[in-house]
């Protein structure tokens, strides 16, 4: 059996694991990340993409509010390429609690969170989509952040410093001797081969799965699961993040992200992590509530619904989980008799860097390594140099909008990607017309960004996330993947079905008048052209 040796094993390839890897790498510590699926496959990939100013938490959780305030500021400096600094508004509509509205600016001031009261008319000029029933508006420093890009860039830098990432690798158990984890046993879910990792320290950054992972080492974590569902609109409704000014509730945040807006979320206690999807009841509630702030939300076409699970550390008696702190928890399992095992969970996207810093502080101490954190000082090295978009557009004769969108996904790497066209002019061809994404970017991602499935490619390039949800690009992407992965026709068909089904999962719960025609067409294309499910004999053949 293959054995991988490293100083620190990180379990979980979400944004926390990625942040820990980079922090360790910058402190000169060698590490390996193991991830059951893909980067950000859990809650890190199923959230709003919101960089909190902290204002959201001034009522209920000043500790989280202040954490968000500081981390938001740091990330805007350290990861500018992953952030669209949109700014945000808190708005109240007729019928909302007046006391909240009056108290809000004072509480913000108390937590030193910048806030500016706006004239309602002024706010509606800034954001014309706001309801005519708006009665109060405040400006805050919220922003939109790309979680996948953030994780990718953390991992990219960690890798350049010697860290390794093993995806599709599930932890099956730990070998414990003398109060230490000596070996972690894993299985590759694609090849079904088992392998071992020997590390001096093991970090459990499994997010919602942290409890199950800890249990494999005989440790207990008091973890609650809170499901949050979100809806994606087919275009972008506002320039800024819009928050409802009231106690945290369903559907009170609308976050713009690139060409779409994301509305959510709910907070529903669930007992297990199987089959996480939004229910019709949740969706109706989200739309109904959201429409109070932005009436258009009631008429608009939604292209997708999805859900993520927040891991909340706290007492099991809490209802829904809204009142449990959104702050994070770092557990040194020494108290349970394990000297080299720690769990980091809870928290939020905005505070991922701080979570990594605290975790690595602990590990550094355990490793007897006295090196200070640098992630609040060194920006992520995404853009080595500025890129002139219109120049590139002219040089390669590609519409500027395509180059600009590629830039938001890939940063200064677009120079390298576009140069591929010099070798092969056909790489200019558009594969995904919704975003749009050209062949060169798809090929680049396939060759450099550890892509195994179309879904992996989606997280990296936004293939299949637009209004058609993969109807017109899936077969093209499959052909490109099959060639590079050496897939046979059955395997390719299985992967095509897997991706189409993955997209379908986010569509059928919100099938509505605006989306049904698209689905009639998708059925005509794939089912009408004879695509059928893989039967059991064929599965064996694969």
């Amino acid at each position, binding site marked *: 059996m293959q054995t991988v040796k490293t100083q620190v094993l990180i379990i979980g390839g979400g944004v926390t694991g990625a942040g820990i890897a980079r922090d360790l790498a910058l402190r000169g510590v060698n590490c390996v990340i193991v991830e059951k699926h893909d980067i950000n496959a859990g809650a890190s990939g199923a959230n709003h993409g919101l960089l909190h100013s902290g204002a959201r938490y001034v009522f209920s959780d000043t500790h989280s509010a202040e954490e968000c305030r500081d981390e938001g500021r740091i990330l805007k400096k350290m990861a500018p390429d992953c952030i669209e600094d949109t700014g945000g508004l808190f708005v109240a509509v007729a019928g909302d609690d007046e006391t909240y509205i009056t108290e809000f600016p004072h509480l913000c001031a108390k937590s030193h969170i910048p806030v500016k009261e706006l004239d309602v008319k002024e706010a509606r000029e800034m954001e014309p989509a706001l309801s005519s029933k708006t009665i109060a508006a405040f400006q805050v420093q919220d922003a939109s952040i790309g979680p996948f890009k953030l994780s990718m860039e953390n991992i990219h830098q960690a890798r350049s410093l010697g860290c390794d990432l093993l995806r599709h690798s599930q932890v099956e158990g730990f070998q414990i001797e003398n109060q230490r984890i000596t070996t972690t046993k894993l299985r590759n879910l694609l090849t079904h081969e088992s392998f071992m990792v020997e590390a001096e320290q093991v970090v459990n950054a499994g997010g919602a799965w942290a409890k199950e992972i800890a249990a494999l080492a005989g440790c207990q974590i008091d973890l609650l699961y809170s499901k949050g569902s979100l809806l994606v609109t087919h275009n972008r409704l506002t320039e800024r993040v819009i928050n409802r000014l009231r106690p945290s509730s369903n559907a009170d945040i609308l976050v713009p992200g690139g060409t779409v807006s994301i509305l959510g979320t709910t907070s529903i206690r669930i007992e297990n992590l199987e089959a996480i999807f939004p229910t019709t009841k949740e969706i109706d509630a989200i739309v109904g509530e959201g429409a109070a702030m932005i009436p258009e939300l009631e008429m608009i076409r939604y292209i997708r619904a999805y859900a993520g699970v927040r891991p909340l550390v706290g007492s099991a008696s809490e209802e829904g989980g809204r009142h449990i702190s959104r702050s994070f928890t770092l557990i040194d399992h020494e108290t349970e008799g394990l000297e080299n095992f720690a769990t980091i969970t809870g928290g939020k996207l905005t505070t991922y860097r701080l979570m990594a810093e605290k975790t690595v502080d602990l590990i550094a101490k355990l490793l007897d390594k006295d090196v200070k954190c640098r992630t609040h000082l060194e920006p992520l090295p995404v853009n080595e140099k500025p890129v002139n978009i219109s120049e590139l557009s002219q040089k390669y004769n590609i519409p500027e909008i395509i180059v600009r969108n590629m830039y938001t996904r890939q940063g200064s790497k677009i120079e390298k990607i576009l140069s591929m066209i010099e070798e092969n002019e*056909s790489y200019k061809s558009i594969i995904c017309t919704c975003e749009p994404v050209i062949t060169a970017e798809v090929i680049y991602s396939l060759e450099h960004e550890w892509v195994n499935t179309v879904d992996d490619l989606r997280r990296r390039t936004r293939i299949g996330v637009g209004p058609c949800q993969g109807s017109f690009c899936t077969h093209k992407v499959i052909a490109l993947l099959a060639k590079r992965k050496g897939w046979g026709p059955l395997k390719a068909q299985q992967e095509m079905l897997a991706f189409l089904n993955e997209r379908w999962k986010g569509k*059928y*719960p919100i099938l509505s008048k605006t989306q049904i025609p698209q689905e009639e067409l998708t059925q005509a294309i794939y089912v009408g052209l004879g695509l059928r499910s893989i039967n059991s004999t064929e599965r064996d053949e694969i």
Partner: protein
Amino acid sequence: MRKYRADVVIIGGGISGLYAGYLANKLGYDAIVIRKGQGATALSSGNIDIMGYYEGQSGWFDSGAEGIRFVTKRNPTHPYSLLDMAEGVPDLTIEHGKHAIMLTDDSIKEFNTFLGNIYTGSIAKNAYIGTTLGTIKPTGYLPFYMANGDLSHHNDTKIGVVGIYGYADFDAGYCADSLKHFSKQYHFGIDEICPVTIKFKGLTEQSNLDPFNIARKLEIDEYRQKFIDDIKTALGSKAVTHLAFPPILGIDNAKVVVSDIENELGVKVFELASLPPNTQGLRLVSLMERTSGAKIQRGEVISFNSDGSKIKSVVVRDYSSKFLFEGDFFILATGKFISDGIIDTGTLKESVFGLPVFDGKVWVKHFDPLKMSERQLISPKGHRFLRIGIRVNYKMQPLNDEMNIAYENLVAAGSVIGGYDSAFELSGFGVAISTAYKAVQTLQELRG
């Protein structure tokens, strides 16, 4: 408002509307087709699926007739089952499906006559065609540009699958591999399938090529010759008996493009059934427009007038102009969701006359997403939302929610009718053609 009159006013310009227009015109009616777009027919691959699959069947149906027998035995509200009731009740003296098979067979033959016999095929035997997705599917009738593509009839053939550099919709290598795999699985007698990727040097752009662009170029002699030369070069010493193409072989002059390539290269040529963007459906719509004999008026029907039992007229809007069309008979051929034949205004209903809709079993007024579809995109049951449509009697007369004939002078055809899932069953054009045929028969009866 300007006023017009026609004997038969047909609403919808897809396959069933234009075919009904032809049939009505042929019977001596003054017929007009009102259309707001080209509908879903223009997005199709042009071949006539009669019946390929049904829930409970282990594989594809050998023939359209077998499929019709199967479904008429099991599902009394399927359009084929309605067509099977020659006298309004199931005919117990003959076997299931017999009437429907006869009527469908007649209707497709007549349809073929209408289009100058461009189709070959039979209701008694399905053909098996390759698609640009790399799948193989059964179908009833093949248009001329697919006629050599019945893979079940291939014997010791060597097929070259032609891809064009810069035409990203179609990957010849992937498609060839996949077709090879499935034809082996079906035990077809194909000796070899290989990709032939060419650079179409006649074009200035070598990226973002679309099928319309290539097809239009191939209709020009000079470009066509260059294209044939490019294929020759790419083939080199490779010996093939057949060349399979994506949907690029011309639009209105596809016949010339196909025969020129065949003659120059000494091979048989066919196109693979394709998804949109696609020239195949457009070829069909364009040919139907040119040959139907019915007048075609662009515009959207926005309201109608009736005396309670009969439709008197419809109001048509084309941009800012409005027209009134009076008629003796009306044919509803507006399609399903893609073409707005069925809409959701809080209540799900047919869009022109506000007729109620059903799913083959019960009336559906409110669209509850979780009850309307299966959890798998490709489900062994099909999807309920795709079976939604109006309810008609065996004469194709729309029914109201009390199961009475909605209007005495109204008949319907095509996918606006509910009770079947054309994608899943592979029955789209078969139902469209046979219901249009029946609808015009009814109209003739009503005139007395």
